């Protein structure tokens, strides 16, 4: 897992967000510590250190590490007595919140998040008063972030158990160190929200004919390059087709859209390493290039090494090379069994076959997209914002979130509103029935959550002096009119 220079942001340092009064400072939630342990590795007294497989920050004194791990163990053991199958998932304290997750038998991952706080200066040189806002963060959001950490590790390394089998504790700790050292730097706990809970996939809206053309392209490539086992197709960082199973695609999508694509688009935007220099394959111009593997095929020193990923296969895992190839805004991921060694010849063949076709498809999609946009009318700033999620196909859509970059995901609404969305989502999670919740926020906003079948829709409306009935009518109207082109995806 690689991190772009722009994406590095030291965890633990709080970022003042908003000054509400004179010199009053607000601090967002931040990562205090993150550790992984296995109680069965050091069961005897004096051997406790052996349990610890990874600890961040690494400069914490040994005994403190042991104490913290011991505390977690104790809490989990203690809560088991109440419900043996569901031990504690989180521990709330005034200053921080701890999250526990056991992804594999006896392997525990713990994440400690410092609660957001407000620092109020005092007169007469007295030290400032600190007010912890312990109710401001949501278990669902950070629990999901923790599970995502594990999924991402597993995508690139396989399970903990696999590393243990291959090289024992030594190999596992090496892998954990290598992966999490970088990955934790990319966690932006201050901007985690409902979308992390969903872990959804944004699908690119497309007409049937263009979609079928993409199908045809994928099938032809898989037929001519028989090494390719799975293909995924994205446009504008949105998914169009996945040959991978849903859960694997979910995490791969997360990696592509929050790490790989932003890392490559930033130099593009900066004008460096311009991709707009077309390659010539035969007599066809194309804009295709590898985002993983060789940066330049013509370089005699080019390396043909690709990242390896692990995907589910019945009861075991399958290890694959991940080739990501992009032409303009269209990206195709080709996955090939890791047992095959990829050569220059193969990459050249792929480049000359896929490059021209993908370039053509990308411009087709772009054209079709513009036609559809013209039909649906000019972009007006709508009077509402929404998040939609479908549990069945993981389709998500948000008009609240701006473009995601490697460093931050920006939202266009106040964090208080985001918190309300999260709360509504927690309420929904408690019951199976279809529900609708309407909340009047402190400001002029109304927040409406609808859950029906496997779908959730959250709408934020800004309507002064509206009453409950009017808001309800408004949302009904929106569902009937505005959402037809959003829901056309499912």
């Amino acid at each position, binding site marked *: 897992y690689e991190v772009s220079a722009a994406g590095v942001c030291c965890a633990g340092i709080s970022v003042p967000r908003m000054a509400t009064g004179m010199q009053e400072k607000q601090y967002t939630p931040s990562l205090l510590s993150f550790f992984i342990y296995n109680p069965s590795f050091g069961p005897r007294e004096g051997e406790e250190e052996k349990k610890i497989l990874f600890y961040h920050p690494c400069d914490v004194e040994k005994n403190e590490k042991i104490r913290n791990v011991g505390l977690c163990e104790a809490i989990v053991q203690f809560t088991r007595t109440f419900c043996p199958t569901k031990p504690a998932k989180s521990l709330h304290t005034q200053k921080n919140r701890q999250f526990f997750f056991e992804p594999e038998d006896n392997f525990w991952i713990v994440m400690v998040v410092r609660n957001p706080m407000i620092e109020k200066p005092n007169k007469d040189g007295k030290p400032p008063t600190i007010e912890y806002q312990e109710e401001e963060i949501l278990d669902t959001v950070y629990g999901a972030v923790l599970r995502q950490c594990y999924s991402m590790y597993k995508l690139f390394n396989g399970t903990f158990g696999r590393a243990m089998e291959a090289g024992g504790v030594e190999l596992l700790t090496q892998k954990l160190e290598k992966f999490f050292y970088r990955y934790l730097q990319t966690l932006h706990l201050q901007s985690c929200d409902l979308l992390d809970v969903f872990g959804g996939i944004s699908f690119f809206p497309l007409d049937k004919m263009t979609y079928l053309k993409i199908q045809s392209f994928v099938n032809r490539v898989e037929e001519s390059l028989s090494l390719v086992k799975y293909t995924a197709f994205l446009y504008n960082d949105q998914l169009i087709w996945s040959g991978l199973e849903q859960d694997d695609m979910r995490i791969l999508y997360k990696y592509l859209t929050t790490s790989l694509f932003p890392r490559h688009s930033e130099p593009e935007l900066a004008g460096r390493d311009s991709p707009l220099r077309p390659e010539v394959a035969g007599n066809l111009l194309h804009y295709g290039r590898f985002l993983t593997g060789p940066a330049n095929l013509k370089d005699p020193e080019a390396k043909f090494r690709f990242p390896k990923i692990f995907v589910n296969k019945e009861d075991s895992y399958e290890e694959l090379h991940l080739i990501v190839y992009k032409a303009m805004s269209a990206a195709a991921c080709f996955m090939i069994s890791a047992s095959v060694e990829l050569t220059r010849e193969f990459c050249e063949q792929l480049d000359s076959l896929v490059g021209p076709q993908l370039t053509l498809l990308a411009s087709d999609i772009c054209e079709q997209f513009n036609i559809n946009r013209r039909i649906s009318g000019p972009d007006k700033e709508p009077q509402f914002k929404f998040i939609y999620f479908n549990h069945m196909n993981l389709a998500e859509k948000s008009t609240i979130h701006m473009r995601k970059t490697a460093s931050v995901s920006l939202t266009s609404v106040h964090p208080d509103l985001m918190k309300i969305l999260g709360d509504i989502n927690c309420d929904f999670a408690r019951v199976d029935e279809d529900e609708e919740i309407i909340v009047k926020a402190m400001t002029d906003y109304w927040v409406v959550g609808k859950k029906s079948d*496997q779908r959730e829709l959250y709408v934020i409306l800004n309507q002064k002096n509206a009453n409950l009935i009017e808001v309800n009518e408004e949302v009904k109207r929106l569902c009937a009119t505005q959402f037809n082109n959003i829901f056309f995806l499912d």
Partner: protein
Amino acid sequence: MSDEHYLELCDNPVQFENASSVNNVFFDEANKQVFAVRSGGATGVVVKGPDDKNSVAFRMDDKGEVKCIKFSIGNKILAVQRTSKSVVFPDKRSVKLLKSQSINVNWYQYCPETAVILLSTTVQGNVLQPFAFRSGTMSKMSKFEIELPVVPKPAKLSLSERDIAMATIYGQLYVMYLKHHSRTANSPSAEVVLYHLPREGACKKSHVLKLNTTGKFALNIVDNLVVVHHQSSQTSLIFDIRLREPDCAVNTHQPVLPARSIHPYRIPLSGPTVVPSQPAVPCQLYSSSWSVFQPDIIISASEGYLWYLQVKLPPTVNLLQDKGKLMDFLLRRRDCKMVILSVCSQILEGGEKGSLPVVATVFDKLNQVYKEYLEAEQTYTLAMESGPSRGSAAQKRPVRTQAVIDQSDMYTHVLSAFTERKGVSHKFIIAVLMEYIRSLNQFQITVQHYLYELVIKTLVQHNLFYMLHQFLQYHVLSDSKPLVRATPQPRLSTANDEIVEVLLSKQQVLGALRFIRSVGGHDNVSARKFLDAAQQTGDQMLFYTVFRFFQQRNQRLRGNPAFNPGEHCEEHVVHFKQLFGEQALMKPATV
């Protein structure tokens, strides 16, 4: 090799007494009748037509050598020509001169099909003057000149009637000129030059068929193909003037297929009355005694046979490697349907790399023709609805030729068997089905539900539920009617219900259960529907599994494995007890 003969003589030739010193044989192109005149008619004239109705036998007085003999249409009047300047009608009739034209004529050709006569004029004979006969009138058409390879000096007759033929190809009248090679004119091989003769307007040189050889040739037209027989090599070539050659100048054509001889033909020894045990002797093909008539007639006077020439399509499949070109060729042939469908099956057998682009090309070509037919049909229907009074000429209902291969043809003869075939990867099956659906969509043809069912069945059989969801998401597996613009859930659950119905109707009970579980709908489905389907299969283990599945569901939802009365599963409970006994039923868990 015998599979490569793509031309054949018909099985039921017209037989007549072979030509001899006492028996003269005449052929009338208009009525397609053969006249066998024995001893100038004194010992009998036997007339044989294409079918028995046209066969007549009579005697007439021998008044000298018969030069030509013909019946009028319907065998009403017989005309006999014995001298170069007189024609005798045996029945006494009067003949009236309707119109006359005075031209010096070298020779003439008549095309009965279009009632056009072509006169060779001028000294060289290469200026041709056509006349059209229509309802008792004769109208002069514009004359045209055939380009001769060499202009002789001094001028002399240089265009022979043997080198000119008239025929209708794709509904248009053409004058075909067999242009022999000439050393002096720098034309290394012979060619056939086609002049298009429209009803109105000037005649234009339109196509050149390259023969790539020299020698004696004869022409036929079969199924809109120009067939060129080459005597010395005893082979024939076929040309399709609608097939465009990418590497040739416009309207210059190479043979569609390599030269092959007509399929060997055996003549029963005893002649007309066939005795099964009688050995047959091979017939000498391309014999110098053959006479060739338009459009598709070959007569062997010495053996007493008249054949119709036919094109056999199956051998062409292996001779034409380019499948796109093969489809272009086949789609224009009369009896093409089964051959086209067999080609489709054949390319799907492949398994060779790069067959998908070929499959796509073939589907696109089929659907192009299919779409044209659907459009013509629609135009016709609209015209009929708007009333026959509008538009002076009554609209003709479009003819559905064999080239119209619709979805049901593809499903029945190709796709259904293909998806069942063992050893074909499901990836390829899905790719092919999607390619067909893509092609139909491209031509804006509404996809029939049974094609979607094939896709769904294949996906479910291989547990590819996520792919299925994605297809549903992009409406690839829905009909092309405007989408219901409402909240998403009713529509999606309708799609799910439909899929379940499809799977149950195909007896894919477990597949249906797995599917509904994958969409999270298994808590709400009707158990009865699944149990009915499972019971109908007669598979006891399947019934057991499904029954157990729902008992467990009941247990989970209601804490009791029993079915509610509202679910109407009483008969299934009885059936289950009969099969597996009372004790096999799940008991409510005791607290």
